[in-house]
C-alpha cells in the first residue's frame, strides 16, 4: 500500500459544505506529491492513522548547510536560530489528521534561556572549583559531588526543556503543556541511570518505561491528559538478543583472561616494581600476552556488534516508545520497519564517505601549499598562526560536516519514519478538547545547552 493509497487523510474529519474542500484537497495533493516522491522508500507504511510528513529533504539540507556555515561564522551563537529553524521545519511539516503542527518558540527565547542558565551555572562551577581546592574531606569528594550535581542538573534541564518545547507546540489552536516537578524527575532519572549502569544496561527498558510514564502523565494536550502504556519488560525481551550479542564476546574474553592468568605471580611482580616490570610480568605469565590479545580481539567484536546493531536498537526503541503514547482516548500504534532505519544509516555512511573524500582532497591541497611555502621561506610565527588557523578551520568544517550529514540523513529519517509509521485511533475527541496551560520559560533549554544535554 502506498502512503497515499488511502487518499488524503484529512477527509474523514472534515465536511465540505461551502465548496472549498474539494479544491483544497486537490490543491494540497498536487503540492504534496513532489514531497511524497522525495520521501523515503515508505512502501508498506500505511498512513491511514492520519499522520503524514510533508518535509522536502532538499529544503532541510539547505536549511542545515546554511546553518552550519553561520554556526562557524558566529562561533556557535547561531545555534539558537538553527535549532528554531529545524523545529519549525519538523513541526510544521508533520501533519496529524490533516492539520500540521506549529512551533511557536523563537531564537531570542532560547538565547535568553541560555544567558539565564549561565547566570545559574557560574556559581555552581565556582563552588565546585573552590571545593576542589579544599584539603579536607570536601576536596576529596568534590569530584564525585560535582559530577553528581551536574548530572542532576542535566536531568532537571532535560525535563524543563521538554516543558518549553511542549508549550511551544500548537495543534489546532491549542497548546501542549507539561506539569510535574523537574527536581522529582531529575532525582528519579539519575537514580535510574545508576541502576542501569550497575546492571550493564539490563535495567534500561524499565528506566525508559518509568521515566516516560512520569513525563507522559504530566503531559497535556489542552485538557486532554497524556499517559504512557508501553511495558519495560516487552522492550527488554526485544532488546535482550542484541544485548547478548554485544556483551557475550567481552564476558567470554574476561572469563578466559581470569582463567589463564596466574594472578598471584602477577601481583608479586607488580609489588616488586623496578624498571623492567613488563619483562618480569611476561616471565611469570607466559600466557598473559595471548590472553590480552584475545581480549582485545573480543572487545573489537563487541564494539563492531554494537555499531552494527545500533540502528536496530533505535528502531526497536522508537517503535516501542511510539506505541506506548496515549492522549485520553487517542491511542498510537507504530509499524516502524527496521530496514528503513538501516536505510537511513546506509545513506549516512554513503554521504559521509563522499564528504571524507572531498575533505581529504581539500586537506592535501592546503597542506601541500603550506608545505611549499614553508620550504621556500622560513617558518615564522605568522605562518605558524596561519597554519594553525587553517588546521582548526579544517577540523571544524569536518566535524560540522559529519554532524550536518547525520542530521539530514539519520535524524530526519527517524523523525519522518517515526511520524509516517504512526496509526492513531480515537481522533474524534479532537472535536472537543479545551485549551489550558501557559507557555513556560526557556531556562531548561538554556541549561540543557550549557550542560550539553540538549537535543533538537
Amino acid at each position: 500500500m502506498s502512503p497515499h493509497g488511502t487518499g488524503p487523510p484529512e477527509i474523514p474529519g472534515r465536511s465540505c459544505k461551502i465548496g472549498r474542500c474539494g479544491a483544497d484537497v486537490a490543491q494540497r495533493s498536487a503540492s504534496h506529491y513532489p514531497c511524497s516522491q522525495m520521501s523515503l522508500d515508505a512502501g508498506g507504511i500505511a498512513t491511514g492513522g492520519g499522520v503524514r510528513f510533508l518535509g522536502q529533504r532538499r529544503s532541510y539540507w539547505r536549511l542545515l548547510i546554511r546553518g552550519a556555515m553561520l554556526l562557524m561564522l558566529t562561533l556557535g551563537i547561531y545555534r539558537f536560530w538553527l535549532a528554531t529553524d529545524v523545529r519549525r521545519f519538523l513541526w510544521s511539516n508533520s501533519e496529524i489528521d490533516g492539520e500540521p503542527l506549529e512551533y511557536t518558540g523563537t531564537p531570542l527565547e532560547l538565547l535568553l534561556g541560555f544567558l539565564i542558565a549561565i547566570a545559574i551555572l557560574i556559581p555552581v562551577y565556582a563552588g565546585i572549583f573552590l571545593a576542589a581546592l579544599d584539603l579536607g574531606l570536601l576536596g576529596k569528594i568534590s569530584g564525585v559531588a560535582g559530577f553528581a550535581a551536574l548530572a542532576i542538573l542535566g536531568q532537571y534541564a532535560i525535563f524543563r526543556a521538554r516543558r518549553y518545547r511542549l508549550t511551544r507546540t500548537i495543534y489546532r489552536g491549542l497548546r501542549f503543556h507539561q506539569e510535574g516537578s523537574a527536581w522529582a524527575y531529575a532525582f528519579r532519572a539519575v537514580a535510574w541511570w545508576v541502576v542501569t549502569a550497575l546492571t550493564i544496561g539490563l535495567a534500561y527498558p524499565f528506566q525508559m518505561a518509568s521515566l516516560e510514564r512520569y513525563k507522559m502523565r504530566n503531559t497535556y494536550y489542552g485538557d486532554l491528559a497524556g499517559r504512557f502504556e508501553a511495558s519495560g519488560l516487552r522492550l527488554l525481551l526485544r532488546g535482550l538478543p542484541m544485548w547478548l550479542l554485544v556483551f557475550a564476546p567481552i564476558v567470554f574474553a574476561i572469563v578466559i583472561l581470569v582463567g589463564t592468568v596466574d594472578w598471584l605471580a602477577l601481583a608479586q611482580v607488580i609489588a616488586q616494581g623496578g624498571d623492567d616490570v613488563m619483562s618480569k610480568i611476561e616471565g611469570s605469565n607466559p600466557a598473559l600476552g595471548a590472553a590480552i590479545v584475545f581480549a582485545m580481539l573480543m572487545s573489537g567484536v563487541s564494539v563492531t556488534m554494537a555499531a552494527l546493531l545500533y540502528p536496530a536498537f533505535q528502531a526497536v526503541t522508537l517503535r516501542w516508545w511510539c506505541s506506548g503514547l496515549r492522549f485520553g482516548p487517542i491511542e498510537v500504534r507504530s509499524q516502524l520497519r527496521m530496514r528503513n532505519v538501516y536505510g537511513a544509516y546506509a545513506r549516512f555512511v554513503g554521504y559521509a564517505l563522499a564528504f571524507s573524500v572531498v575533505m581529504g582532497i581539500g586537506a592535501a591541497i592546503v597542506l601541500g601549499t603550506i608545505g611549499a611555502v614553508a620550504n621556500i621561506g622560513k617558518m615564522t610565527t605568522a605562518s605558524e598562526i596561519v597554519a594553525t588557523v587553517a588546521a582548526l578551520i579544517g577540523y571544524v568544517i569536518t566535524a560540522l560536516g559529519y554532524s550536518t550529514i547525520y542530521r539530514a540523513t539519520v535524524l530526519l529519517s527517524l523523525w519522518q519514519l517515526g511520524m509516517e509509521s504512526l496509526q492513531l485511533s480515537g481522533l474524534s475527541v479532537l472535536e472537543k478538547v479545551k485549551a489550558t496551560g501557559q507557555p513556560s520559560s526557556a531556562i531548561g533549554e538554556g541549561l540543557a545547552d550549557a550542560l550539553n544535554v540538549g537535543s533538537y
Partner: protein
Amino acid sequence: MNAPMASGAGIYFDGVTSARHDVLVVLKPASLHISSRDGHLLGEWPYQELEELSAPANLLRLGRRNSTVLERLEISDPAFAAEIDARAALVDRTGALQRRQRLAVVGWTLGATASLLLVAWFGVPAIADRLTPLLPAAIERKLGDAVDVQIRGMLDSRRSGVPFDCGKATSETAGRAALDKIIRRLETAAALPFALRTDVVRRNEANAIALPGGQVYVFRGLIDKADNADEVAGVIAHEIGHVAHRDGTKAMLQGAGLSFLFGMLLGDFVGGGAVVVTAKVILQSSYTREAEAAADAYGAGLMNKAGGDARALAVILDKIGGATEPGMKILLNHPETKARVAAINKLAAGRASSPFLDPAEWTALKHICGS
C-alpha cells in the same frame, strides 16, 4: 482589486477548543471577517494585528498579535493568501524581516568575537596581574598546599623504599646543608615577605618548578646537569622570581578567566571544543612566555644582588634548552633559549663574583639524592 478575491475559504480554530471550523473569510477595508458556514460572524481581525506563523510552505497560517488565546486562521489558496499578504504589513512571505535579523546576529557575533579575543589577549593577563596582589598570602599558601598535593601525586613515581624528597637520609644531610646555604644567601638578597621552602626531589628531568605560596622543587636531574653551584643557584633564583611575581596564582586566575570566556560564552557546537582548547593553549603559552622572561630578569638581578654570577643561569639554560627546540613557537611556553641567554647575559653585572659553595660543599650537593 479583483472582486472575486475579496473573499475566500479558510480553516479557523478559535483557540478555546480544538474543533475545526471551515470558514468564509471576507476582506473588508480595515479588517478581515471570519464567518462560519451558516453566516455566523466568528471573528473580525484588523490587518495590522495579523501575524504570520510557522507553517508548511503551501499554507498561510495567521494568528492575532497580542491575542490571549491561540486563534488560528489557515489559508491554502495561494492567490487568496497573496491578497491578505498585500493588506497586512506584518505578514511578510518573502522572509526579508527574518534575513535582516539573521544578518544582525552574524554582524554582532563577529563584533563580540573580536572583543572577546581582545579581552583574552590583553584583558585577562591585566586582570590577573591586578587581582593577584589583592589575594592574601594565607589564601595563596592554602592554594599552594592544594596544588602541592596534586603535583606530588603526579610527579612521585613511588619507588619502593626511597622517599620522594632528597636530603632526608643521614648520607644526604651534608647535601641538604649545602642547599640551605644557597637558599639563605638568595633569600637574604631577595628579602621576600614570606619564607621559601625549597626541596630537591627524585626526578630525572633537568627542571625546577615553583608553586603558589613559595614552595620550590628542584629536580635531581638539574643538579646532575649543573657544573657548579652557581648554575643551581641561578635556576633557584629564577624560580624565586616566579614566587615573587606570584606567577602560579596568576596562571590559575588566567586559566579560570580563559575557561570562563571561551567555555561558557562560546563554543557549544560541534567542533567548537577544539577551537576553544587551541585558543586557550596559544593564549596561555603567550602569558607564560612573558612570565618566564620576567622571571629570568628577576633571577639575573637576584644573582647580581647576592654577589653571584648571573651568567651561570644563562649557561645552564643553554645546556637544558639544547641547540634545537622542536615544535611550534606559538605553543612554546617559554621564550627561545637563544633570546633568553642573550637577555640574561646583558643583565649580568661585570664585577667579580664569589661562588655560592666551596668544592667540598658542591660535591655534597651533587650527592643530595644519595649515590
